[in-house]
Structures are given as C-alpha cells and as structure tokens.
C-alpha cells in the first residue's frame, strides 16, 4: 500500500514537470492562473493568509476529534469509541492542536502583521517563508494521513517511549507522527530564523527596538524560542525514527537504552513550545487592548522585559513535566522554584493590561471582548500553573484531569482567545472588510461560556481521581455528572465555531467596496497607515518612525500620512517560485518512503529536495522592480 502511494505521488510529480515542459501553452495558462499565483507566492501577506486558512482547517479537524472524545466520556463505560481508537483520537487532537493549529495561526498573524508593523516591504527571506509554509502543510497532511492509511498515531501528543516504540505501537501511526512533525518542524525552524532576521535587519528608519509594537516583540522572542527549542525535538524525533525504522536502541531498556532521554528531549522542546504558542497571543492581546482602550500600553518597557524573561526562563523549567519520573528531591526542588519564578513576569503582564484599560475609553468590539475575556481566563490557567509547580501537590495533579483543565485554560483561554481577538482585529487588514459584529458577539459569548463550562469543572474531575487520557470511567466513581456538564460545554464551543464560520461567509457576502477602510479601528501601529487592500509592496516609501505607536503619533500630530524616509523610487520585489512547494513535496515523498519502510523512496525524496536546492543555487534570479509610475497608479487607486 505504502509503496504504491509513494510511487503514485512521485509519478504525479514527474508528470507535472514533464507536461509543463512539453506543453508550453498549458504551462502559460497555469502560470497565469490565480491558483498558480497562490501556490508560488512569496508575498508574506498571502502566506500569512494561507497559514491562517490551513490552521483554521486543522482547527476544525482537531475540534471534531475533541467533540468525539467528549461524546465518548458522556456516560460511564460508554462503548462508542474505546481502546486504541480512543488513544488515536486523543493523540491526534493534542498533536494537531499544538503543532498544526496554535502554531500556524500565530505564525499566520506574524506573517500578516510583523513586516507591516516594522515598516518593511517583506520578510528577510521571502523564498524561505514560502518554504516554511509548505513544509508545515506537508507535515500536517502527513500526520493526518494516518487516519486514512494504517491508523493514526496513538501514543499521546507527548509520544512517550516505549509506548511509541515498534513493539507497543506496531502500526505506522507513530511514524506519521514522527515524520509529520519532523517535516513541519524544519519549516518552523526556518520560519523562526526568518522572523528574527526580519526584525533585526529590516526595521524602518527610526523603528528602534524599544519602539517595536508589542506583537512584534513577542514574535521576536517566540522566534528565538523556536530557534533553540526545535533542535531538541528534531533530535528526539530522529532518535525515535532510528529506533523504529533502523533498529537502534536509544530507548530500549533491554538493550541498554533509556526511555527518559526521550522525555527530557521532548520537554526541553515542549516547555518552550508552550511559550511559543502563548507569547504571540500576549502580543495580540496587548495590541487589541491598547487600541480599544485608546491608550498606549501601560509599562511598555516592563512588558518587553517580562516577555524576554519569560522566554529565557522557559528553558529552565522543562522537568516540571517530569516530577513523577523519580529524578530525586534535589532536581524536583530546583525545577519547582524555577517554575514558580515564571509567575512573576507573567503577573507583570496581567497588571499592565489592567492598567492599560484603567483610565481608558473602552470600546467593546468583538476583538476587545476576546481580549478582555482572555484576562480572567488566563489568570485562572496561570494560577493553576503555579499550583502545579509544587512537586508534592503535583504528584496528585499530574496526569489527571486537573492538568487537562489547566492547559486548556492556558491554551484556549490564552492562545485561542488571543487568536480570535487577532482574527477580528486584523480581518479588515487582510480581507478589506470587517467581520459582522453582532454575529461576533454571539460567537464570543457562546465560546466563552462553553469554554468555562467544559473546563472549569474538570479541575474537580482531576481532584476526584480521574486520570487523563482514559476512554472511560466507572459508574461507581461518581464522576458522571461532571463529565456530562463538560460535554455540554464542548458542544457549545462547537456551535460557537459554526457561528464564526457563518460569520465569515456572511460578512464576505455583505461586504461592499466601501467597507474597505484603511484604518477601521483608529489603530496605533503602522499596519493601519497603508492603503486597503494592502499593496504588494506594503509601503510606497518606507516610513520614518518617530516613536512608539508610530501611526497614532502621526494622527495626533494632525498628519494624514506617514512621513516618508526615502524618495519615491522603483521598488525591488522577489519573484515567486514553484520550488518551495516542490521541495515540500520532496520531503513528503521521502517521509512516506520511510513510513512504509521503502528506504529507496525515502532517499529519493531527499535527493529531490537537494536537487531543487542545488539548481536554485545556480539560478540567477534577482527579482523584479515596480516602477515609480506603477506605484503612483496603485496609490491613486487606493
């Protein structure tokens, strides 16, 4: 089966190349199409939208998996989805939500907003940016292929060995997990480097580090976390792949291996990963709260400092996920204190948000509702986090529903609320029209209430002795009604998501040319200063930045436009490329080859990637220029 699939993909790839080569007219038609434009684009705005679209799609899949989990747990001893199938559901739910929902949605916003916020025309490496996206998508599809061919991963999103080893998970599920994450991980790492270089090197004149909008700052720190956190995951996945496919013994106790190595590698990555998916949400919340309070961010400098400190401490605390593995009291004590200390910078942030609103003029748009709803929810998740940091207490919470409740408060109450705030906030910038506010209101309340209904009560579920990742519980355990309340809440969140989808369609339909406002929220940062829809070159002339909240400052000074830092001149643009998607396909083919133990195909895919890299190195492509009269034309039109 696997061989057939891989060969089929390869044949399709070759046909694509060959027909394109032989049939010039066809090629031209393809290259003129809208589809080709999106598949080969290197424009950060389009890539951002594709990230958001793909992340949204995976969100629906992951959400559906969550609903199935909650349905199974509605009754004690329910036999709707049991045993290994249930393990597949919970594994795929977790893996999908972290790697293919939270991260791409946030990276999507980074793409959409960061170059605009720093006054740049693009990211530092547009080609690699496209490659990042296609690798992420390839990895996501690969992970989910498990549902169709041979069974999905079933060892939990943490994929602990030996449960993830050949012996105890003989199907291809864990291989899909390993290769899928490896491929998308390469993409994420490239993306992290890209944003770091972009923010360091491509800021507009006058945009000093302490004038960066907070979302850009959190992007910067997040990218640094990606840079250092993904290599441990890469190594861990590589070792697990060696163990599964090439018969090595890293984790096999019988052959001298040690399964704790995986746990350490995973959490050295995994804990910073938690901050990777929360810090950008902090950034979005900061932007939204500041904008709709009509005030500059309270304590900007300490916010920046807190962000860096959280990022730094994020690397010192991973072992608090492993208090029960028997590291001994000294290690547990050290990691406990380190973990608790993270509460301090996080607390600073919470109070800064509160005092940003203090004395402001609050406008409760849907974006603001999600941002405001974020605060108490995240505080809840934060304080349970501190509770978990105490090892003796953690021996009780660990791997119980208390932990499930905690991290959903952080990941939904933090990340998802942040993302949804960002969706409503930046939607007009991306699509030229607002989302409907009344539907947004319904969406917010259903989601907010449904969320608390689902997860607040799960804290008690854990304290009453329900372990996580169980497909059922006994009637005598007395856990039934709590589980039922939780399921009802989950259904509410599902309905809320449907309302949102309807809102997307409805708002698109009712949008007119007049709904394209360039500054619909009376924004503060540079992305609201440029015409709507955003021209492909972003800024006709790079702006001169005079302070924090640059656009707000200009507006307060009575200016209608930004002051340019350069004369109007031809703009250099990178040309689009079909290579990123083909390179991703190469990795994909290679991954399939390894999954189905057809090592030749695995190597072939990698050769394909290297050939594409090699030939690109010889390609002399210096992009193209947009001439001055074209820019003038475009700016007039907007």
């Amino acid at each position: 089966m696997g061989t057939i699939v891989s060969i089929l993909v390869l044949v399709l790839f070759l046909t694509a190349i060959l027909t394109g080569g032989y049939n010039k007219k066809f090629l031209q038609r393809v290259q003129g199409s809208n589809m080709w434009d999106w598949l080969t684009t290197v424009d950060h705005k389009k890539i951002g939208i594709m990230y958001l679209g793909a992340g949204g799609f995976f969100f629906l899949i992951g959400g559906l998996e969550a609903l199935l989990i909650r349905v199974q747990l509605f009754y004690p001893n329910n036999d709707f989805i049991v045993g290994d199938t249930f393990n597949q559901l919970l594994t795929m739910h977790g893996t999908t939500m972290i790697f293919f929902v939270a991260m791409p949605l946030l990276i999507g916003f980074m793409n959409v907003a960061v170059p605009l916020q720093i006054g740049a025309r693009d990211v530092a490496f547009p080609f690699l940016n496209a490659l990042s996206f296609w690798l992420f998508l390839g990895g996501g599809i690969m992970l989910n292929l498990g549902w169709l061919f041979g069974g999905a991963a079933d060892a939990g999103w943490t994929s602990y060995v030996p449960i993830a080893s050949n012996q105890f998970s003989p199907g291809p599920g864990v291989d899909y997990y390993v290769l899928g994450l490896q491929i998308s991980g390469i993409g994420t790492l490239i993306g992290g480097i890209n944003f770091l270089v972009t923010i360091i090197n491509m800021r507009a004149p006058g945009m000093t580090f302490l004038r960066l909008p907070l979302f850009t700052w959190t992007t910067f720190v997040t990218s640094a976390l990606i840079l250092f956190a993904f290599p441990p995951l890469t190594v861990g996945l590589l070792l697990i792949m060696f163990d599964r496919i090439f018969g090595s013994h890293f984790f096999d106790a019988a052959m001298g291996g040690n399964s704790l190595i995986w746990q350490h590698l995973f959490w050295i990555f995994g804990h910073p990963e938690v901050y990777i998916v929360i810090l950008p949400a902090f950034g979005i919340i900061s932007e939204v709260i500041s904008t709709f309070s009509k005030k500059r961010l309270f304590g900007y400098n300490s916010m920046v400092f807190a962000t860096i400190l959280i990022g730094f401490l994020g690397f010192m605390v991973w072992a608090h996920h492993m208090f029960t593995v028997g590291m001994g009291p000294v290690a547990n004590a050290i990691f406990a204190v380190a973990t608790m200390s993270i509460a301090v910078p996080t607390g600073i942030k919470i109070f800064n948000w509160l005092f940003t609103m203090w004395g402001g003029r609050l406008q409760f748009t849907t974006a603001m509702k999600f941002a405001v709803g974020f605060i108490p929810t995240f505080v809840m998740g934060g304080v349970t986090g501190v509770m978990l940091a105490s090892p003796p207490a953690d021996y009780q919470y660990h791997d119980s529903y208390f932990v499930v409740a905690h991290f959903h408060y952080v990941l939904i109450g933090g990340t998802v609320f942040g993302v949804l705030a960002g969706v409503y906030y930046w939607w007009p910038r991306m699509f030229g029209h607002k989302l409907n506010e009344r539907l947004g209101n319904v969406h917010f309340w259903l989601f907010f209430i449904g969320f608390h209904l689902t997860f607040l009560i799960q804290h008690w579920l854990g304290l009453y002795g329900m372990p996580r990742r169980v497909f059922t519980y006994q009637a005598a355990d007395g856990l039934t009604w709590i589980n039922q309340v939780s399921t009802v809440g989950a259904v509410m969140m599902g309905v809320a998501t449907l309302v949102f989808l309807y809102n997307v369609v409805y708002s698109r339909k009712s949008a007119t040319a007049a709904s394209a406002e360039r500054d619909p929220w009376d924004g503060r940062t540079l992305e609201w200063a440029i015409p709507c829809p955003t021209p492909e070159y972003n800024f006709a002339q790079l702006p001169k930045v005079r302070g924090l909240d640059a656009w707000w400052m200009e507006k307060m000074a009575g200016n209608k436009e930004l002051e340019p830092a350069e004369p109007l001149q031809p703009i250099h643009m990178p040309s689009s490329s079909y290579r990123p998607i083909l390179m991703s396909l190469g990795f994909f083919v290679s991954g399939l080859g390894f999954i189905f133990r057809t090592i030749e195909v695995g190597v072939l895919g990698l050769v394909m990637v290297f050939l594409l890299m090699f030939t690109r190195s010889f390609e002399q492509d210096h992009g193209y220029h947009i001439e001055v009269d074209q820019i003038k034309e475009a700016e007039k039109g907007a």
Partner: protein
Amino acid sequence: MGAGNHATATTGLPAHPEKATFEGKNKVLGFWLFLGAETVLFACLFGTYLALKNSHLGGPTTQDLFEIPLVAAATIILLTSSLTSVLAVLEMKRNHLGRMQFWFGVTVLLGLAFLGLEIYEFVHYVHEGHTFTSSAFGSAFYALVGTHGSHVLFGTVWITTLMVQAAKRGLNLDMAPKFYVASLYWHFVDVVWVFIFTVVYLMGKVG
C-alpha cells in the same frame, strides 16, 4: 542595496563583500542564527551519548575501541581545513578568485580525507562488533559522530558547488556571502569536532 550595485559595477569588491548587500547581510545573520540552533542540536546528541556511553552490553567499550593516533590525525586534518577555509575567505575579500579557489579546493580535499578516515574507523569498529544496533552505546555513538560526519559531507558538496559557480561567474556581491556563509559552516563543523574528540574520544579513553 544601492551601494552594492555600485560596487559591482567597479572592478573591486568592498572591504566586507559578504555584508555589502542587504541580502548578504540577512544571509550572514540568518546563518549565524542557524548555527545557534545547530549548537543546541549537537548538545542534545552529546547529552544522549553521555547518558548511554556505558551501555555497551558487554560489547567493546570506549577504552577498547578508540585509537588515539587515528583521532589525532583526523583532528589535525580538520583543524587545518578550518585554517585553509579562512585563508580562502581572506583571498575572497582581496578579490583573488584563483587563490580563493585554491584554498577552498584544499579545504574540500582535507574534508574528504577526514571522511575517508572516519569511514575506515567505522568499518574497523563494525568488525569489532560495535555497530549502530549492537547496543544503546553503539546507537548513541554513531548518531553523534555520524551526524557530524554527514555535516562534513554536506559541507564538501556545498563548497564544491560554490566553487563551480564561482568558476563560471567569477566573484561578485552575490557569490561573496555564499562563500562566507559556507566557510562559517565549515568552522562550525570543526568546532563540533573539537568537542567530539574531547568528549567522545579523549574522555572515552580516560573512562
């Protein structure tokens, strides 16, 4: 960017051709960041090796296996190649295409010699019953040293590719950052080796 274009039009390259263009600047910085990530990657492999180095299951131990003269030779070769690649970059900055190609050529040859020694070493070990699948120690050893070896291999292919390009197009502001970055990579591979010969071979000999 404007300055860069101007400089290519004249005969010489500016003092720091690798950072003269905007793209070059981005490339060099981005590559440094990548090396930061590689540092953590190798650190994790080192950690894994240190955790498993005594799990040889009765197979040959580090003391039985390692031969100091062989490692010393490999070390000298790689250190020298680090010097030759930096000499090549100096020639590049002086806009001496031929000499640069010569030094990079020497670098590649030294890299290949190193790989040859490594292959010889691995074959030797396999004969002594120390393989990737013989024990956790075997797995960890080959994962660490093999990853480094594959970096060396990639580096030789990369530098060779760039030399072919330079032979075709000559030196310009497009090529300079590529060479510069490749030489950074090569130094980094050398740095990793310094730790491999220290932690794996010398400390393995000590026990």
